[in-house]
């Protein structure tokens, strides 16, 4: 029994010291990480909806059971205390997994302000190009009246988005997410 006690105490001491060390490093890095995360979030929000000065999570208020399953979060951007824009987090299924996208809508102009692909696991060189500004920027300023479409050839209509070469699936997935957000926006923020 003595044996076990001794071993336990040794393990206890080692664990404690280790925890101490890790805790110390954590106390050093935690604020940095936290700030980064905050900053990242704010930055992303700002990227898709630059005008707001405060963003609040209002998912609970807007997402009902019957909302599209692609919608994950709804954040409201306030400007001077009044709602000015809506930022959706949507998660459509891409070629090799879910793609998380932010989409910003301006209530006043009823237009898509911008989108940002946050996380994706698409194939590098193919679907992963959804992160390229070249692709994302196509969504800027699109209207919210009709669904967007994916076209493999250079767009001829206003509601068309040109697919990433050889990645129609990814392009369609992104667009379907945006369309879900668009529909919700059109229905809830008249």
């Amino acid at each position: 029994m003595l044996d076990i006690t001794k071993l336990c105490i040794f393990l206890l001491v080692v664990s404690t010291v280790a925890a101490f060390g890790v805790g110390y490093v954590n106390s050093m890095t935690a604020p940095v990480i936290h700030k980064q995360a905050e900053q990242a979030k704010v930055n992303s929000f700002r990227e898709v909806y630059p005008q707001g000065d405060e963003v609040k999570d209002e998912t609970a208020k807007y997402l009902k059971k019957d909302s599209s399953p692609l919608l994950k979060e709804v954040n409201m951007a306030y400007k001077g205390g009044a709602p000015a824009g809506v930022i959706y987090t949507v998660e459509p299924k891409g070629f090799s997994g879910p793609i998380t996208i932010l989409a910003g809508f301006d209530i006043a102009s009823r237009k898509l302000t911008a989108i940002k692909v946050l996380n994706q696991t698409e194939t590098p060189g193919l679907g992963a190009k959804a992160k390229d500004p070249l692709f994302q920027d196509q969504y800027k300023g699109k209207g919210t009246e009709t669904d967007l479409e994916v076209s493999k050839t250079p767009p001829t209509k206003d509601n068309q988005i040109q697919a990433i070469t050889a990645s129609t699936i990814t392009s369609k997935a992104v667009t379907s997410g945006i369309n879900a957000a668009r529909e919700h926006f059109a229905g809830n923020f008249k």
Partner: protein
Amino acid sequence: MSLLNEFTKGIIKENPLFRLVLGTCPALAITTSVDNGLGMGAAFTAVLLGSNIVISAMRKIIPDSIRIPVYIVIIAAFVTMIDLLMHAFSPDLYKALGIFIPLIVVNCIIIGRAEAFANRNSVVPSIFDALGMGVGFTLALVLMCTFREVLGAGTFLGVRLFPETKAAIMMILPPGGFVTFGCILGFLNKLQAKNA
């Protein structure tokens, strides 16, 4: 001379990745770009260095029967520290390496070194051993990365070498990882057979 030896053996003769074939998961998973390889190598070396120092310093007082749990705790502590530091100060790399940073804990090489070297040698040789192994691992990673990044993405360290449409994307997909590793091992075997 012997310290130098401790250092160099990890680079070629006992290269952890190519000779001992340990720590294969990260070697396959993150070697899609040279940046990743360098980052992973650095993180790995730091952990190995830390754990080797601590374990060799404590080797006389660690009770034999629980030495493995103790090693694990020590190594895990270092890994967590690196993980946190990287998260805070190099977020991009942190994201690219993802789950493979915490997984350094179970990298067989580190425990292997603790058991086979640090536990039997004093601090100074252990430092050299760790550095040698770390550098060896890093070099091995970088070699794999180079093949995969150049062939699969057409870039080296992000610098474009030839147009993207001419790059064989498969090389940066999982099959490319396996086949690169397999061929390098085969090639090294061949070299060794020739020298022997």
